[in-house]
């Protein structure tokens, strides 16, 4: 089942007089439950593409459908609502809320974005803490845990509202190699358990090789066929 479809998708930034073409007409489809990587050199358009998929930014031309919704047509408020209901985010800098504990950070979207009752929240958070391996740490503040642990909490927060899609722009860029690897493994495990679609971007070849579908970006275009994969579970749509 296709979760995301892009047709002739274009994004041009306008900074005063100059126009910067960041995405120059791409077509692709991503199946649900897939584990996808956007790779490519700096400036190739990975973040731009992820922002459009995540309804944080709108395309200049072309069509982008996410979960049967033409997200190019959403206004600010509808986009916020759509993100809150369907999409989880994991950031490069973790972006946990510093005044909240681990538990409260995972709880945040359940209170401020959706309206979950207390008992359901407690159950969900306990399950996620267990799944990301942070049980017993829930009372700690973000500044009391390591980078890898922060990203685990961030993954749990992205999954808290049972989002069908999690977007992670360079989630491992601020982690050492081993930790980075374990975060990707965690995301993959969550995909296996929950069926959530994960899309992440990275520069790191070893990390990207963990993906099952790889889109190679260069200069705003999906440039060439993916690198040979050990055992690709899902085929490439390009």
């Amino acid at each position, binding site marked *: 089942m296709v979760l995301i479809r892009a047709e002739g998708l274009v994004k041009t930034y306008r900074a005063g007089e100059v126009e910067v073409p960041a995405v120059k007409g791409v077509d692709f489809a991503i199946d649900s439950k897939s584990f996808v990587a956007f790779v490519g050199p700096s400036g190739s358009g990975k973040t731009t593409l992820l*922002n459009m998929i*995540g309804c*944080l*930014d709108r395309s200049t031309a072309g069509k982008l459908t996410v979960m049967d919704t033409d997200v190019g047509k959403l206004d*600010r*408020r509808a986009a*916020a*609502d*759509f*993100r*809150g*209901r369907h*999409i*989880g*985010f994991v*950031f490069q*800098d973790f*972006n946990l*809320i*510093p*005044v*909240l504990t681990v538990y409260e950070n995972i709880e*945040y*979207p359940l*209170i*401020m*974005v959706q309206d979950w009752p207390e008992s359901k929240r407690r159950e969900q958070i306990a399950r996620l803490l267990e799944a990301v391996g942070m049980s017993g740490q829930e009372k700690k503040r973000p500044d009391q845990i390591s980078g890898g642990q922060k990203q685990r909490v961030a993954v749990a*927060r*992205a999954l808290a509202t049972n989002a069908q899609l999690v977007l992670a722009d360079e989630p491992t860029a601020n982690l050492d190699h081993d930790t980075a690897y374990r975060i990707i493994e965690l995301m993959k495990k969550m995909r296996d358990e929950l069926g959530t679609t994960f899309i992440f971007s990275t520069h790191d070849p070893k990390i990207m090789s963990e993906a099952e579908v790889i889109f190679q970006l260069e200069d705003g275009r999906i440039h060439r066929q993916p690198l040979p994969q050990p055992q690709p579970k899902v085929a490439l749509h390009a």
Partner: protein
Amino acid sequence: MLKVLKIAARNLARFGRRTLLTSVLITLGIVAVLLFVATTGSFKTIMIGQFTDSMLGHLQVHRKGYVASIDSLPLNLNMPPAMVAKVEDALKGNSAVEAWSPRVKFGAMFSNFTETTSVRVNGVDPAKEAATTPLLPGRLVGERKSGPLLRPGEILVPEVIARGLKVKVGDTVVLVATNLDGSVNGKTLVVGGIVQSATGPSGKDAYVDIEDARTLLRMKDAQVSEIAVRLKDPAQLDKEYAQLGRELSGVTNKEGKPALEVHTWADLSPFSSIVRMIDLLAVFIKVMLVSIVLISVMNVMMMAVYERIREIGTISAIGTPPRRILSLFLTEGLLLGVGGAALGTAISLVVIYALNIWKLSLKFGMQSSPVTLSPAVSVADVATIAGLVIVMSVLASLQPAWKASRMDPVRALGHV
């Protein structure tokens, strides 16, 4: 909502020093305003009391036009007995009135048989006068303090005349006055007491019995120049002024126009402008407080938003509705205001309580004994000022909070 409160409180705690500084500023502002209101309020009450209770009463009733020419104490503008009866009927029927005193006022020459000076004379019923202006007995100086305030045939001499003419209690003096028909009459009286001035060092108000005054002026009937009225509760002044004015408007002259006029003590005393000054100062200091709150809260909230741009980007990206973000920052401002207001009110109440224990006394006027200030604030005052501060805090947070709620998540996330 409880969670929003919790998050807001923790964010305030996170920047503890800044929060503390802002709350201290708000607190000090509130303390300044409440102490000012409390002490000046007490000062005002005492000052007003001095005027009303020693001379003016709270309200005065005259024949129309009397006050306009009060300097000459005109005898032709006295109220005839029928008119006086109507006024007294109205006063009798009013439960807010504690007492009243009819007076016959006139200008006279005062002589100790060797020297002569001018004097303003109040012919009064001693009992009624004492009930209407209870501070009058306390203004007596000199030997005699016991017995009735004033007996028929006696005169209470103003201190400045007693000193100037070297008159003592028990001396015989003479008053000479021009009557309404232009003839002159004199009457010898015994000095029953020396009375301090209520209106300043040069006040020359003497008191005699009202019947003595009528005899001296050869009045054929029981006419009256003014009726001073004392209310049970001075706070009801405006209401009772209007009430009495309404009731007496029915008393008309031959042309059918109102024949009487009612004045409050404030109309008759220059001190009322000082009271207005004090009230103006209070408004001014409240404006200062509002400015302090607005500026400091707005400043601290703008900083809070600026420092947390990435955090705002994060919560916005994950789908927090803009109005929630708005309420998050408004709540921070609200908490600052509530905290400052609570602390400020608490400190003020403690200080006001302390001022009432360690009496703050001051001496003023011709009063021989110092008066003690008893600062007090009403619940309404406290509620108004605390409410003002809280509302201002929220208003001051509005712009920064609005800005936060409208932030573009991509730009906010990219902010370093």
